[in-house]
């Protein structure tokens, strides 16, 4: 167990330049793919945000949450989803999409999940920039608490890499993994309190207690909450220590399992294609 963790960490940290180059050129090739290039990295999330603004801000006219306009409240969670969603779906494909490379050269396979997350991190930075502009137009101005975003972003990366290590290996064993994940993404979106506040389940019945508990240990919800705290509630990042423990506990377990699988199958990938 320890050996596999050491192996994965070593492979990742000795190949930082490789990780950086792969994500950089992958991004660059995406950008070259279209005429407008980097414009789409901004336009795509902008159009999505406008869509949600239209539906939830104008058409449905939802109630404010804790005195915060619904659209502001929802968007703080939605940006997390825009980051986590591609990390999970593309993370599952991290190894398989590089088949051509791993069958033709000696390659440290365990760095691939990190390259996917790093690439998405760039898109996330673009969307955060848009968010800040949006909040300024709405009268929410940057404050020192916004720096907490850095911590939550780091947490999200750790979670995404750990999860991608497991799913990408599983996807090599059976390609059904990715199909299952793609099919479940919408479900995960609605199961995470992003589009609705968790206070919907505030009644003290056993069923609702269980639902609340499951929601709260959901790692994605921890990050969603964190972004909202930083952007809107002006709270620091040590606010919920119980959820924090649960989050890092789950991420740690995912990481250990992921390392173990990576180590176990490190030479077998080529025979699985």
């Amino acid at each position: 167990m320890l050996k596999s963790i050491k192996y994965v960490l070593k492979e990742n940290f000795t190949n930082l330049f490789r990780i950086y180059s792969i994500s950089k050129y992958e991004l660059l090739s995406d950008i070259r793919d279209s005429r407008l290039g980097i414009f789409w990295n901004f336009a795509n999330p902008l159009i999505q945000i406008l869509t949600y603004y239209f539906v939830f801000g104008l058409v449905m006219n939802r109630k404010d949450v804790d005195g915060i306009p619904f659209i502001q409240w929802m968007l703080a969670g939605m940006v997390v989803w825009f980051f986590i969603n591609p990390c999970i779906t593309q993370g599952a494909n991290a190894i398989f999409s590089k088949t051509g490379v791993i069958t033709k050269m000696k390659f440290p396979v365990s760095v691939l999940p990190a390259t996917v997350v790093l690439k998405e991190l760039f898109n996330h930075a673009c969307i955060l920039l848009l968010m800040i502009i949006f909040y300024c137009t709405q009268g929410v101005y940057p404050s020192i608490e916004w720096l907490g975003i850095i911590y939550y972003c780091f947490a999200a990366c750790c979670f995404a890499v750990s999860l991608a290590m497991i799913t990408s290996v599983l996807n090599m064993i059976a390609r059904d993994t990715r199909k299952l994940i793609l099919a479940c993404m919408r479900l995960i979106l609605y199961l995470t309190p992003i589009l609705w506040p968790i206070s919907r389940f505030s009644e003290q019945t056993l069923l609702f207690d269980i639902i609340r508990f499951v929601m709260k240990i959901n790692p994605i919800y921890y990050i969603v909450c964190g972004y909202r705290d930083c952007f809107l509630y002006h709270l620091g990042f040590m606010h919920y220590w119980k959820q924090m423990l649960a989050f890092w506990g789950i991420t740690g377990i995912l990481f250990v399992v992921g390392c173990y699988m990576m180590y176990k199958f490190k030479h077998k990938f080529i025979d699985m294609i």
Partner: protein
Amino acid sequence: MENYAIKFENVSKIYKLKKKNDGNTKSSETKRFYALKNISFEIPQGEVVGILGTNGSGKSTLSLILAGISEIDEGVMHINGEQSLVAINTGLNKQLTGLENINVKGALLGLSKKQIQEIIDGVIEFAELGDFLYQPVKKYSSGMKSRLGFSISLYLNPDIIIVDEALSVGDKGFAQKCINKMNELKDEGKTIIFISHSLPQVRNFCQTAMWIEGGMLKEYGEVGEVCDHYGEYVDYYNSLTNKEKAKIRDNKFKKRIVQNPQIGFWEKVLDRIKG
């Protein structure tokens, strides 16, 4: 340091075959197949070895194993030095320019920024792309692509170089240039494994040759002799009728099936999943 570059002792590589589904018989076991069976040899340092063999005899598997990409299932393998497989089209990104691709491929191969800067001029000169260097690779002809890929691979500095059918693309002039470059590497004392179907190329370039047939090592020795024997065998095989050819193929195939494989629990589970 010992004086061999590569040493194989009874090395075998086993592949799994999918279950045959002919409707009548239902075999629950996945068949196992020797891609390479019981191969032993020793290649001294600085030798240029040609590998010959008909299609499906295990040449490419051998090259993957030699490059350290694929793992062996039985036996012991010693490799002395850093090895690299010359892979032409891998890691080339169609949207990026030739120059960027040199950076990508360098990074994929694990070079540092400084190392890439060191080799980049040599690669550009060797690839002879001219102004196409700044065009996206999707605009390249197939010959240009392989020239770029090959150039990057040649400028790495491994001790053992494995070339798998790489010279079959590209025009004669470039092939000759590659051979010249490889001769230079040969003089530097690199070990080169050269896999090719072209007997003349092997005869010209290699010192020794290895003939692999049906996953087994048939002959390993001086290049002229092995090439002669291999050429005779191919001629003999071609002179057979189709029926006789099929018989030989069947026999070879049967010999390569693994009898009574020892399978662990997890592998059994995996077999079930993979079907």
